[in-house]
């Protein structure tokens, strides 16, 4: 039955991507296409008092300069601007009014026949501001934090237990602002069709989210516009919400009645969402034997003044470590920055980093091996709801990861391992993420030539959705994968949520199964009705689709024959899959991450020479693309540990390193051996295929494993990320 599921199938969109034929949002074209270039605000807070576009308009080839003063109509109610993943608050509206809410806010769009002309003319737009007092420094404003309502209720008396604990570890860990920096620049090509309708090619993780948003913002009917995004050059959460360039391109198309492309510059992308800078305060109280008495975790995070963005930074100890007393809180500080947004493993990447560094510090204080401490506190239940797990093979992750890494050879004392002139450090940490699943609909069209088209509005942001959908469909329909074509990311296709939270693999795979089951039933009915059908005496429920045939135990007939005999050219089935609600079990993925660092003592240079990530995430649909997901997560974790930081000049409320030379992300030379292990984790409760999703779990735990390895190498505990060499030389 499973010719493809569980195998290392190469990406079905691979050829398009290696030959340059895969088209991204800013690469679609149209007759008479014109180009928009964004002018950004250069103050963090205040008001535009003069916006002079006259010089820009004189440039030959400039068609218009859109501003808040001359733009076409935009919705005036917050509800219209709230997309399906918008946080509480009043969403940002580009070119809506004269108010400046963050540095880098778009304030004008220069539209010209050629991109270079628009870019040049944008430099001629003159702006005067009235600047208001502003704040961009989280640490300075920590006192103004306000508490958010979060689901993790306190258990017991954490404060009292902490005060009475035999051993206590308490510290602040600082996660800086980070930017996603997908390789593709944010771009939208809005095509003005001959009938006045709009086709919007947008860089997004959710075409239907953008479609609904644009309809609301521009007061359009669903049929008036269509959003398409066949390939997305990375997003990592930055494309969950509609970004402002899609509003600007569409606004300009409506203003000029022409097709318009808007591509942001790399610098402008630092005005989009970001991982919020967060101070994670963790306190652990333990008994001498290493069992926990109390866990408290407080996050103080940045948000904008107009929206309250927050994620679950603090509750993860409830899943991981048994403690009779716990307390969690999440506080927000409003600053004059753009609203933060989801960024790979939002909440967990930051919060678990702090928790796992704290656990390492506790292990040192208790003179326990870090794995031993974690096993002593191991929780078989999600304590916040007191639920068992659908599956949790975290113990196996520790064991398999430790074995592959050679953890038994570690000497516990810091600075006790060396390789020539370099200090060697071995550290480990736990990772955890949710196994979410969402309603998704899929349409399958089976044609009598044995070909099936599978379509769904879901996006493939590089995660491999095209490929797993093809694999699951091929197995379910009993066809070779070459006979399956997959269409995704068109708002006119069957329903899908934004691609995020690691939920798309499980959600789309089960939707494929649902539609394929309807196809099977239809074929069975037709096959049984054929004259002299070999299936005549078989129960329709028991016949299967295998190798282009339908039948059971040798009594089978080819699908092509069934359709020919029935005079049917195509069978089309669309099915919405909804997962049964089951509140009786917690659903999570887990990992154990082991890292080796080598540190040049004189220069402080840190290299991550080895990482082993042992992951328990249910059944793996595609061992090749799944490994890539985890590799990518580990690379992100290395960046988070050692490189990534958006640096703000608080005197001007302006980002200093808004480019990818000075905002450091890992390059090839930074990445060495990474070993990915998938621990066997059968799970027949979570869903039919036992799938959990992999997009986020790969990063969680990695920064802490590296920080803990740096401590082991050097004896220095760095709690302000990233761990740059200057911090080691202090």
């Amino acid at each position, binding site marked *: 039955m499973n010719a493809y599921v569980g195998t290392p199938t*190469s990406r079905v969109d691979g050829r398009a991507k*290696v030959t*340059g034929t895969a088209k991204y949002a800013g690469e679609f074209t149209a007759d008479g296409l014109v180009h928009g270039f964004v002018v950004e605000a250069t103050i963090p807070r205040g008001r535009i008092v003069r916006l002079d576009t006259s010089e820009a308009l004189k*440039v030959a080839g400039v068609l218009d300069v859109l501003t808040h003063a001359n733009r076409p109509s935009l919705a005036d109610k917050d509800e219209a601007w709230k997309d399906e993943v918008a946080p509480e608050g009043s969403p940002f509206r580009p070119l809506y009014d004269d108010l400046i809410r963050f540095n880098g806010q778009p304030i004008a769009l220069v539209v010209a026949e050629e991109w270079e002309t628009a870019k040049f003319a944008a430099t001629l737009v003159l702006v005067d501001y009235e600047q208001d007092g502003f704040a961009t420094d989280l640490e300075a404003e920590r006192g103004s934090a306000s508490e958010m309502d979060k689901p993790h209720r306190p258990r017991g008396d954490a404060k009292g237990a902490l005060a009475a604990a035999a051993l206590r570890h308490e510290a602040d860990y600082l996660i800086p602002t980070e930017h996603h920096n997908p390789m593709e620049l944010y771009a939208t090509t809005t095509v003005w069709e001959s009938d006045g309708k709009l086709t919007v090619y947008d860089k997004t993780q959710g075409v239907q989210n953008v479609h609904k948003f644009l309809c609301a913002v521009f007061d359009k009917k669903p049929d008036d516009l269509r959003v398409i995004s066949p390939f997305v050059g990375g997003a990592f959460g930055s494309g969950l919400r509609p970004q402002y360039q899609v509003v600007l391109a569409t606004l300009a198309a409506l203003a000029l009645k022409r097709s318009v492309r808007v591509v942001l510059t790399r610098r402008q992308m630092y005005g989009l969402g970001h991982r919020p800078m967060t101070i994670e305060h963790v306190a652990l109280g333990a008994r001498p034997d290493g069992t926990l008495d109390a866990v408290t975790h407080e996050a103080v995070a940045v948000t904008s003044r107009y929206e309250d963005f927050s994620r679950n930074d603090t509750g993860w100890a409830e899943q991981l470590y048994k403690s009779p007393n716990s307390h969690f809180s999440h506080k927000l500080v409003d600053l004059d920055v753009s609203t933060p947004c989801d960024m790979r493993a939002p909440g967990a990447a930051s919060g678990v980093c702090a928790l796992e560094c704290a656990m390492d510090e506790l292990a040192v204080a208790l003179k326990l091996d870090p794995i031993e401490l974690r096993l002593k506190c191991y929780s078989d239940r999600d304590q916040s709801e007191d639920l068992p797990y659908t599956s949790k093979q975290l113990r196996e992750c520790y064991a398999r990861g430790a074995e592959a890494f050679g953890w038994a050879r570690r000497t516990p004392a810091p600075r006790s391992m060396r390789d020539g002139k370099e200090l060697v450090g071995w550290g480990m940490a736990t990772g955890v993420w949710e196994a979410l699943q969402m309603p998704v609909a899929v349409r399958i069209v089976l044609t009598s030539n044995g070909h099936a088209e599978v379509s769904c509005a879901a996006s493939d942001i590089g995660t491999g959705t095209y490929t797993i959908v093809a694999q699951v469909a091929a197995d379910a329909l009993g066809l070779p994968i070459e006979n399956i074509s997959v269409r995704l990311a068109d708002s006119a296709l069957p329903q899908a949520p934004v691609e995020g939270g690691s939920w798309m693999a499980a959600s789309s795979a089960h939707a494929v199964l649902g539609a394929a089951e309807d196809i099977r039933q239809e074929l069975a009915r037709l096959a049984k009705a054929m004259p002299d059908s070999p299936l005549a005496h078989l129960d329709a429920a028991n016949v299967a689709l295998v190798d282009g045939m339908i039948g059971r135990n040798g009594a089978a007939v080819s699908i092509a024959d069934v359709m020919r005999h029935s005079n049917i050219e195509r069978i089309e089935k669309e099915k919405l899959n909804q997962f049964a609600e089951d509140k009786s079990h917690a659903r999570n993925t887990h990992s154990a991450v082991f890292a080796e660092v080598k540190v040049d003592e004189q220069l402080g240079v840190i290299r991550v020479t080895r990482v082993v990530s042992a992951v328990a995430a249910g059944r793996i649909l595609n061992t090749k693309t799944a490994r890539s997901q985890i590799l990518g997560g580990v690379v992100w974790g290395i960046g988070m540990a050692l490189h990534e930081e958006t640096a703000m000049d608080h005197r001007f409320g302006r980002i200093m390193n808004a480019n*990818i030379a000075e905002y450091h992300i890992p390059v*090839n030379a930074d990445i060495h051996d990474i070993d990915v292990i998938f621990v066997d984790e059968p799970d027949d409760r979570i869903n039919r295929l036992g799938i959990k999703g992999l997009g986020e779990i790969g990063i969680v735990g990695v920064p802490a494993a590296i920080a803990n390895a740096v401590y082991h190498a050097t004896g220095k505990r760095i709690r302000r990320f990233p761990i740059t060499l200057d911090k080691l030389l202090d």
Partner: protein
Amino acid sequence: MADLTDQIPERISINLVVNGVRRTLEVVPWTTLLDALRDRLELTGTKKGCDHGQCGACTVLIDGRRVNSCLTLAVMKDGAEITTIEGLAKDGTLHPLQQAFIDHDAFQCGYCTPGQICSAAGLLAEGRARDADEIRELMSGNLCRCGAYPNIVAAIEQAMSRS
């Protein structure tokens, strides 16, 4: 301020041999080779990731050498032979690097991929990389945010061993 229409420079006619085909185009001197390829010749396989020579997504081969096309003005390359990702496969058969990138899953979103492959083709021609460490070092001008680096190195090693 004076009438700014005269600030747009005059167009200059240039010839480029792109993927073996001679192309004549009129470009303003400020047009980069990258924008000429993408917007004028509709060869969008070459990607723009930063426009500042920081990411390598725009890497093409000019007279056989790997170059950031975003830092190259089109007028500077009058008469040059340019190979883009669209020119690597021959008669429908993938270049060994393209096949190796598929085999090793050396990409996820695919956006840096054309630049990675062109850069790797340039690297193989240079003959400077002898092992994985040298590949890593000499491919570090090509960023991959999906983090496919280990697979990129494996793909290049495969193509190197077969060439």
